[in-house]
């Protein structure tokens, strides 16, 4: 795996989170009934950071939840490795709430499709918005993000790697050569 470019460094990372937090507050005119839901694994930590940032802006903390979409995936039959499931942790009723779904990279849109199905099984939110750190294009589903940290035009042979302090010791986004060509 060769690194082709560092797209976001640590300082840029912090600024991006700050901007996304402000945009979420602006669009929702505050955080009344807003629930931030992070998608495992990296979306979970990004959601936590956004929640903390919003708390420091608004002095009120929005609710936070974690969503695991493994059971809703559409690629069980085509994947080589069985994905590991983990627990969804959303302690509040999401009915009539405004959900901000947070993930690290938006690519084919299939994970978001699975997340929408998963959320619908948990309740009937008034709206669902999508917030991603990186949009790398190549969508296979009619899905668009409401809040984008950075749009990066990529080739299909490249991969976007998001690294986070919580699990990878540093904050940063890299563009790397994909080990599996032509995927």
């Amino acid at each position, binding site marked *: 795996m060769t690194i082709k470019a560092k797209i976001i460094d640590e300082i840029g990372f912090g600024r991006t989170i700050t901007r996304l937090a402000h945009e979420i507050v602006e669009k929702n005119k505050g955080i009344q009934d807003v629930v931030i839901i992070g998608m495992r694994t990296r979306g979970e930590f990004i959601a936590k950071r956004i929640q903390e940032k919003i708390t420091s802006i608004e002095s009120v903390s929005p609710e936070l939840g974690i969503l*695991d979409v*493994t*059971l*809703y995936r559409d690629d*069980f039959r085509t*994947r*080589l*490795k*069985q994905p*590991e*499931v*983990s*627990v*969804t*942790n959303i302690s509040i009723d999401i009915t009539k709430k405004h959900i901000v779904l947070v993930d690290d990279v938006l690519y084919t849109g299939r994970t978001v499709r699975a997340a929408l*199905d998963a959320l619908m*099984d*948990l*309740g009937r939110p008034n709206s669902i918005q999508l917030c991603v750190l990186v949009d790398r294009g190549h969508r296979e589903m009619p899905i668009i993000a409401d809040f984008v940290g950075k749009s990066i035009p990529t080739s299909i042979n490249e991969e976007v790697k998001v690294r986070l302090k919580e699990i990878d010791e540093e904050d940063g986004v890299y563009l790397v050569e994909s080990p599996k060509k032509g995927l």
Partner: protein
Amino acid sequence: MSLTIKHLIGLHGVPSDDIQTILDTAKTFREVLERPIKKVPTLQGKTIVNLFYEDSTRTRISFELAEKRLSADTINFSKSGSSTKKGETFKDTIRNIEAMKVDMIVVRHESAGVPQFLTRISKASIINAGDGRHEHPTQALLDMYSIRERLGKLKGLKICVIGDIAHSRVALSNIFGLQTMGAQVSVCGPLTMIPQNIESLGVKIYTDISKAISENDVLNVLRIQLERKAGTSIPTLREYHNYFGITAERIEKNNKDILILHPGPINRGVEITSEVADGPYQIILDQVTNGVAIRMSVLYLLGTRQ
């Protein structure tokens, strides 16, 4: 993580990593069972046959619910009302069911070894829901899950299985599974109900129920199985109750916390009194709820295995 096993015939020889994966995955499904919509689309398009050659309420409903909650298509087969009555052999029945393109077979049979035999004549993934006196792996897995949920671990725990060990498939699966996970398993009951040479499995034998209660962390109380001729091993049910029944008095005399499990159905007043069966130390209905989660876990892990 994927399982190394393709079928679940018994817990004998199943590596601890596999058991760990099944128990951990069940936690996810336990959460699904708390949702308003208790259904996920994971096994959509998979067909599962429930082949029950022996009566069952809990296990059968539990498997069926688990399958439905994973969105699989299910077919139920029972001995009565089937062509078994018309003289069709077991092998032919399986071949015919298989010709209808099924992905998994859940089987219960009064003869030990039937699930193993199925793995040889069918391409489907086989799950044993109890075969004769051999094994009942999903029951032992849900017992282990329930114990772990309450006590936080399995390793180092002392667990005593009480009752008719000789006729019990639950006992054997418990012994194999719990030992693999590092627990110490013992048995307690009248010697006529303890199989010969069970010590060779590393299992301690108690004939004094009070001692078994005071020296263990968990009691797994088995049902006295009248339909399996348990009557020939004991003079009367009342005598069994007097010597081996789990009573409030025996539990209270022992001044420490103890966890009581029972696979059901309960013979109240025989192996356990109503006072204990509905009391503070038992987790009998938790076991039933966890059973659905464990079966979802097994079905998911075997059904999506590549």
